[in-house]
Each structure stands twice: as C-alpha cells, then as structure tokens.
C-alpha cells in the first residue's frame, strides 16, 4: 500500500516535470539560439559551443530596438496609469453613493466584456485617423484608457472596505476626494499594485490595436516591430531570437522578481 503510494507520487512528479519542461523549454531554446553563431544555429546543440553576441549586435543595428522599447514602456505605463485613475474614481463612486442610474451604469460596465475588439476596430480606426492620432502613443493608448475589468475588480475591493474608517475621516472634515486619496488608497495599496502589474503586462502585450495604428517602425512598440522581423523571409534565426529575448526581458524580469504577486493578482482578478 505504502509502496504503491510512493510509486504514484513518483509518477505524479514525473508528469508535472514533463509539463514544466513543455512550459519553459521554448524559452530556453530562444535564449540558447540567440547566443549561437551562424553555423551552429542550425544544429540541435543544447548549449552554444562558441557563444557569441553577434546576434544581439545585428538585432540592435537592424531595428530601432531602444526606440521601440521606449514606445512599449510609454504605452504600457500610460495605459496602466489611465486605467487605474479612471477605475479608482468610477469604482469609488459606485460604492460610496446611491444615485439614479447606478445599477444601470454598473450593468453597462459589466456587459462590455462581451464586446470583442474585432467588432469595434473599424469605427475606432476611423476615429483615430480623424483625430490625427495614428502613429502616436496617445492613439494607441486612448481606446484602452478605461478598463471595465479594473473598475469591477476595484468595486469588489471598495465594497469590503471598513466603513468606520471612512466615517471617522468624514467627521474629521476630510473631503470625499480626500477620503479616497488619503484614507482608502493607502489601505488598498497592495491590491492596486497587483492590479497595476496585471494591467501593465496586458498593455505591454497588446497586439491588434498597435498593429493597426502604428505603421512606421520607429513608432511601433517592440512587439509589433518584432512581428515584421518574424515575417521577413530571412534566415536570421539567431538575431530574431536575440530580438525576441530582448522583447520579453522586461516582463520576465517583473515576473521573476514578483512571481508570487503576479500569480496572486491573476488569481485574485481572473481574466481580462
């Protein structure tokens, strides 16, 4: 019986380890390939025998990588900031006061996830062009300046906030905005931070909209720039893997440093 149990546990771990390999081997192969030289890249060696940084040099010289990374950062940070601000205000109002149309507004917020971006991309594209915002960071960010997912997540958090603290602050003469800023916000810092991480990753990885709005290499976020590199019919696999490694480095670093918070924030907030 005990022996059978041990056997079962070994099998379990074996299967889990196989799953882990499937999950991270492609990343390993990406990094491995990025350090291989031109002749070695086409062999299946698991460690670069003569490691080289030539691929990285080539990637940097053939694409405005630094500019693209800057675009990506600006887009992701601006998007996250705007989404947090709009959702903090909206979530606060929904919980704090009772007013006409409150449940209607709540319904409007919660139904918006049924609308796929592909169903609204053409009118949005037309509007951005009309505003002259294509090829601009603002044009990429603006349609994503509000996230109903963030509003609803914060709504749940505000609802659980102890009312005594708010009451005390109000008697101290704190304004309504001051209560949000100085009483509630410091207490839900960690929630807002996990939500922020999630929104940042989403902003960084955004695909369809930036492809439509940015057409010139120097205006593109790194992901979209990488796409034209992927689709060019060259056999520069080494430098492509180098560029790919650079493109996911910030996200990987955030993940490795904050893995627990990242996983927890996905658990806490679910899917976007």
């Amino acid at each position, binding site marked *: 019986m005990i022996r059978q149990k041990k056997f079962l546990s070994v099998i379990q771990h074996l299967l*889990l380890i196989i799953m*882990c390999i499937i999950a991270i081997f492609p990343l390993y192969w990406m990094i491995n390939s990025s350090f291989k030289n031109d002749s070695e890249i086409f062999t*299946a060696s698991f460690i670069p025998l003569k490691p080289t940084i030539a691929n990285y040099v080539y990637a940097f010289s053939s694409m405005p990588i630094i500019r693209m990374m800057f675009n990506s950062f600006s887009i992701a940070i601006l998007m996250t900031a705007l989404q947090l601000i709009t959702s903090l205000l*909206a979530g606060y109002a929904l919980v704090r006061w009772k007013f006409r149309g409150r449940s209607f507004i709540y319904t*409007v917020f919660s139904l918006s996830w049924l*609308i796929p971006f592909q169903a609204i991309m053409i009118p*949005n594209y037309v509007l951005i062009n009309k505003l002259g915002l294509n090829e601009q960071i603002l044009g990429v960010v603006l349609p994503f*300046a509000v996230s109903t997912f963030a509003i609803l997540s914060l709504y749940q958090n505000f609802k659980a906030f102890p009312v005594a603290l708010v009451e005390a602050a109000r008697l101290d003469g704190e304004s309504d905005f001051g209560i949000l800023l100085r009483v509630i916000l410091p207490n839900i810092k960690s929630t807002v931070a996990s939500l922020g991480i999630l929104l940042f990753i989403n902003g960084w990885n955004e695909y369809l909209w930036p492809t439509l709005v940015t057409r010139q290499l120097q205006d593109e976020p790194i992901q979209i720039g990488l796409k034209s590199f992927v689709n060019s019919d060259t056999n520069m696999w080494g430098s492509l893997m180098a560029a790919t490694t650079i493109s996911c480095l910030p996200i990987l670093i955030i993940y490795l440093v904050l893995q627990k918070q990242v996983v927890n924030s996905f658990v806490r907030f679910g899917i976007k």
Partner: protein
Amino acid sequence: MSKSLENNYPLSVSNETPVFRKRTSKKVKIIKTLKPYFYLLPAILLLGIWIYKPLVSTFILAFESWGMVPGTTPEPVGLENFVRLFNNKDFLTSILNTIFYTVGLFPFSIIIPLLLAVVTHGMMGKIKTVYRVIFFIPMILAPVTVSAIWRWLFQPSTGLINIALIKMGLIHKNISFFSDPHFAKWVILFVTGWGLIGFSTIMFSAALTSVNQDYYEAASLDGSGKFKQFFDITLPLLSPTIFFMITMSILFSSQFTFAYIDILTSGGPFGSSTNIYYEMYKDGFSDLNVGLSSAAAALFFCVFAIIALVLNYVSRKFAFYDN
C-alpha cells in the same frame, strides 16, 4: 454587509446656519447630486466613445457599403452584405475552423489544467508554488514573442521539432508545419493552448484552495479512494469555476487564436487556419470591404451574446454552490 462602505451616507448634509440655508443648500444639493457622476464621467465618456458608440457604428456599417477611403461616405445597401457573407466560401470555412479551435482548446483550458491543479493541490509547501510559477510563464508572454519562438521550433528545414522527429524515426521527410493545410490548423491550436494551460491551472488552483477540507476527511473515513473523491467531491464543488472557464474558453477562443493566426499563417494556406475574427480583419483592412466585415462582426456579436446568456443560465441551473 452592513459594515461596508456602501450606501451609508445621505446625499445632502446641511449644517449651515439657518440664515444662509435657503440659497446655499440648493446649490450644495445640486453639487451633491451631481458628485457621483463627476467621478464616473471619465470612465463613462471613454467607454461610450471607444466601446459602445463604435459597436453601434458597426451595426450601422453592416447595412452599408464603404471602402474606408477618406472623403467618401458609406452608402446604404440593405441586407446585401449579409447575403454576400453567407455566399462567401471563406466565411463558411472560417466558421468551421472557429468551432474546431473552440472545441480543440478545451483540453488546454479545462481538462489538463484541472488535472494539474488537483495533483499539485495535494502537495506540500514550496514545491507546489514552484510548479505553479513555472506553469504560468507562457501566459505572461506576448503573442508575438510566443509566435517567434514556435516559428523557430517548427521551422520546416532546420527547426528543432523537425530535427527531433527525423532522428526519432517518426517521419522521413521534413514537415512544413505552416504551409501544409493538414498541419497549420493544429500548430495554431497547439501554440494557443500552450499559452493557456498555466492560466487555467491557476484559476482551478485558486478555486480548490477555497474547497472545504472536511468533505475529503469524511470521504476518507468512508473509505472512498482518490478517484472516487475526485468525481464525488472535487468536480461538483468546482463546477461553478468549470462553467466559468468553459464560458471563457468559448467566448475568447477566437480572440486567443487571432494573433497567432495573423503572425504564423495569415490564415493560410488556402484559408485552412483562419477564424471568423481573422476573416473580419482581412475583409476590413486588406480588402477594404467595411460592410462585409461589419456584417460579420454584428452577426457574431449577437451569436456570442446568445451563447453567453445560455451558458450563464445553464451554469446557474446546474452548477453546485457550496454555501
């Protein structure tokens, strides 16, 4: 609930001196009444401009003909776009593919993650976290990053997968995964699924953490085995989460596959790997046929909304809630 922030404040609080009361209180009252709307204004405005208004526009454009050329205006054409949509062979293929992807993703979004969550749930301490953190990595990577890596692994002449398959003697000739109509679809499915496993695993793990352990102890005392416990306790208690994940999987599978189709195969070869959203994208931005694209968008928005409603109903009726 009574101790929450919600609804505890009357909107008008006036403790001004009686002399000024008449005038100020009216002003104060208006400001107080409008206050919530000020806070909601940015969100509502942005949502209206970028989500709801465009949705209405799409529904209108579905009955018009337009080539997105600046200076021209859309012309009403009645139901013509819908007639053309249903006579379009690519569109029918894309519906079949969409069903293929939706069904094909279930193992990646439900079955494998459920098993992984249950197996890791029983483990102790750190090792559990280590497994979960590793499973989760594919989820945080951008579609372009994932596509670039798999494009290299599946590369037709010197990619690792072809090299490995030939060495193992499973195939004799290299497979061109992306340009062979038999494989393109499966590669897209696999790559999308690869990214999904970790996310679903985490969702199921989170649900398992909140399951009351007493049930298992009682079942163990009754002498029921691990498999019986899984079917008698775990599955029913997880049913709300399972329904939720099934809904997600059905509604979002076309969005999940979209980026990979665009980057890896562009819907080809011969439209064999396309899906409905990719067809809309091509109709709109390659063929500049806004009417056709909008007709498809309007139609599928309704189809998915109905599916969501039905699933919501089914889930309420059949899922087991442990209160």
